[in-house]
């Protein structure tokens, strides 16, 4: 599929279907972007499991951090990639192996090769987007900060 832009319905569908997210590249430091995203997604009811070899065994925002996706003992719905684009192909292979349904790559992360591989294995892919920004955009919270959400609707806003 085309990854230059995404329909709101596609993103909504993904965010509605997901419960457990493995965040590859999650940082234990509170002022890092990945920490912001993890904390926000937790408040929206997602379980976020951090994956980072340098913090393996530590607890980040109440969740045990694992070195690799394969180490996570629980089922994972979505893998969120907080690593540079060059690492995307190997992370996608791991995501396929653990049975994830979705691979989501953060802003600035894009690998069309990895996306094609994931899609061939039946996974849905989002690239160069942030789940925190997209979630908040679709529920209207992003507009609280003066951001143009692009959402036009005369219906009362609901949960995602």
């Amino acid at each position, binding site marked *: 599929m085309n990854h230059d832009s995404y329909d*709101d319905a596609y993103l909504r569908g993904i965010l509605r279907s997901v419960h457990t997210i493995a965040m590859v590249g999650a940082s234990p430091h509170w002022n890092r972007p990945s920490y912001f995203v993890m904390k926000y997604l937790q408040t929206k009811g997602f379980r976020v499991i951090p994956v980072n070899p340098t913090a393996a065994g530590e607890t980040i925002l109440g969740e045990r951090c694992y070195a690799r996706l394969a180490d996570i003992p629980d089922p994972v719905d979505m893998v969120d990639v907080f690593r540079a684009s060059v690492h995307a192909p190997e992370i996608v292979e791991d995501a396929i192996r653990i049975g994830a349904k979705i691979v989501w790559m953060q802003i600035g992360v894009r690998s069309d090769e990895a996306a094609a591989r994931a899609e061939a294995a039946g996974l849905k892919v989002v690239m160069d987007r942030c789940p925190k920004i997209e979630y908040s955009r679709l529920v209207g919270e992003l507009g*609280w900060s*003066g*951001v*143009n959400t692009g959402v036009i609707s*005369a*219906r009362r806003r609901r949960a995602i």
Partner: protein
Amino acid sequence: MANRPFGFETRAIHAGATPDPATGARSTPIYQTTAYVFDDVDHAASLFNLQTYGYIYSRLTNPTVAVLEERIANLEGGRGAICVASGHAAQLLAFFTFMEPGASFLASNRLYGGSLTQFGRTFAKFGWSAGFVDMRDPDNFRRALTPETRAIFVESVANPGGEIADLEAIARIADEAGILFIVDNTMASPYLCRPIEWGAHMVVHSTTKFLGGHGNSMGGAVVDSGRFDWSKSPKYATLTEPEPAYHGLRFHETFGDLAMTVHGHAVGLRDLGPTMAPLNAFLTITGIETLPLRMERHVANAQAVAKFLAGHEAVSWVSHAGLPGSPFQALAAKYLPKGVGPVFTFGLRGGYEAGVRLVERVELFSHLANVGDTRSLIIHPASTTHRQLTEEQQTAAGAGPEVVRLSVGLETAADLIEDLRQALAAG
């Protein structure tokens, strides 16, 4: 279904303003409150750390003001906007983001007189230096660039002279230099011109004018395109280096293309403090809903009045880009295809004295210092808005002694023409 691109008129009414989630109120509620309760200490910490969305204190953000911010950002094609107390506050906040003592920027010398004074005199007190350039030749900006130059600033349609900036050409010069291009789009409004589509990185507004449109609320806006790469040059350290007041957070890295919008609230409004009042935001939101209709009539009335003046014996010239023979016709056709705005100037053969006489004799035009009202407005800049400038500066700004400025309103065009006819004819 694919995201459908909505038309300008639809967005002017709906952008930013879905029904109030708490009550279902259809019109945007006026959230007349200074502060907002926290769920708990952790929620408060998340808010203060900028980790989640929410309201803390209305100096930074307010739900009514946020609706206006999103609406203006949407209509301009920007990523986000910061609404502030006035157009001058918008300029202060925009430059505050990336200027520091010793830094400089280039501005058109065809600007609203108040902006010439703000840039040339008041900004100098912060150690920010402004160089003024004749924008009629865009290459003048290229020639005036120095290593310290951080931005180029123009008005899309200059107030009061109506000169039109060659936005695309100037944007190219800014891009080649790796600096910001900021456009004041107040006179045109996004209905007539959208500078971001031509390469502007930021747009500022006095929302007091056509956006509000009824002469009843002060306000300003900074719209960020989200397209400027702050990290490409060390000049824009505010957004790329660790911010001590937020424990070392880097705005561009953390917020990406939202960096300017977040910084404008979290640092700009927090520390400079020029908050827009919620009631003013409400009135401006309501005004924007009819912006397309009003601008169409403003344009038509102004065209009729300009044509009348061009044929009047007491008038030596009319600077309205919609008239045949205007040197700005080509630029107008490119950047303002729906018509140039209703603010323009004309010269009186009788000079300064004739200008004073005219503003004192009109009955229907209101003699005051504003533009962009439903009512028709008239002013003689040399005796009012531009009186602090030298005659040389006045002439350069298109506001010489013989110049009168009109902001043509929404009254019956024939009534406006008749009022000018009687005022010009008298003695």
